[in-house]
């Protein structure tokens, strides 16, 4: 038989289709990503990932690894008989996290085709962003003012009503750039001859909120 280039193309095409990622895996996951949007007041999100063994032999889940200690995983059983279903429950505890988040869970089984990466992805909404959250002066540097910008990212406007130096050693000025949306906090050290540390607390007009909305840290080092 003469092997023609056309035959080679056909053979290669068939081989690639047979070995492609669309080949049927034994564990079929109903979803591999759970998206969320959390308010600033929420503490965690729970993602449920149902799956089924659509193959003809049992599948053993050998390991479940998360990329972060903040994500805890619960699995009903490690060996899934053919034709049966189960689910993996992942709880992502926010802690001090804010903004866009993506936490992954890698599930390894004894069947390489069934190993998968799951994800919890979404946004932890903040009320306000401060940039930078840290102002510093070197010892001996001129005690000039430095400014942090505060941007309210909440759906509704929030008024910053008071900026207080919680620890002393720094003078604080509050400037409204756009009422309820943008503020500037001007911080001036009383002196830079010696090291000093301070924290500026920003209070807002949110009903029922007694604690500061955000903090700015200050240091003379």
């Amino acid at each position, binding site marked *: 038989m003469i092997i023609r*280039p*056309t035959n*080679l*193309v056909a053979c*290669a*095409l068939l081989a*690639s*289709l047979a070995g*492609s*990622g*669309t080949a049927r895996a034994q564990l079929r*996951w109903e*979803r*591999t990503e759970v998206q969320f949007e959390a308010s600033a007041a929420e503490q965690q999100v729970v993602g449920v990932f149902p799956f089924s063994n659509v193959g003809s032999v049992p599948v053993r889940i050998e390991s479940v*690894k998360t*990329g*972060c*200690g*903040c994500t805890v995983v619960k699995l009903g059983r490690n060996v899934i008989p053919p034709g049966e279903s189960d689910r993996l429950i992942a709880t992502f*505890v926010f*802690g*001090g*996290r804010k903004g*866009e988040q*993506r936490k*992954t869970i*890698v599930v390894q089984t004894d069947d390489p085709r069934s190993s*998968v*990466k799951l*994800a919890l*992805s979404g946004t932890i909404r903040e009320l306000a962003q*401060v*940039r*930078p*959250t*840290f*102002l*510093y002066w*070197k010892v001996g540097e001129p005690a000039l003012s430095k400014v942090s910008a505060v941007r309210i990212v909440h759906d509704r406007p929030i008024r910053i009503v008071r900026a207080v130096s919680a620890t002393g050693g720094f003078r604080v000025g509050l400037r409204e750039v756009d009422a309820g949306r943008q503020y500037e906090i001007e911080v001036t050290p009383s002196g830079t001859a010696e090291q000093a*540390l301070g*924290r500026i607390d920003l209070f807002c007009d949110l009903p029922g909120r007694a604690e500061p909305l955000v*903090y700015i*840290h200050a*240091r003379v*080092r």
Partner: protein
Amino acid sequence: MRRGTGCCWSRLAREIALLILLATVPAVLAALVHPRRPSMQDAGARVPEVTLEAVRGWGESPVWVDARPAADYGEDHVPGAVSLNEDDWDGLLPGFLDAWRPGARVVVYCGGGDCRSSQEVARRLREEVGIVDGVRVLRGGWDAWRRARE
């Protein structure tokens, strides 16, 4: 008339090009719609990494930041490292600020392997705290430190 070998090679080249084109179409489709496609979000801006060998070559010790959970830090950590993780960012940040000094290099580590906590902590130090220069992530993380120590 006998056909030259150039004709056969050019035909082969066309067949190879056709094969590549045929493979590209399903590959692009899979990248767009496959349920297990990798997320583009994973390929975001990363804080540069540094090896332990390079850190030792700096001559002066950086501010080490341990981005692992508090329990891991309590069990063992790089000598002198401060704990700073996202589980308790507001509570731990003052401790880091006390340890930091202007011009100091900062090296953040977590468990190693698939751990991304060090990248997240380093990113927040740069973007929120404003320490842009000199922040690096230790390649290999705590695993690399432990292996070098043994």
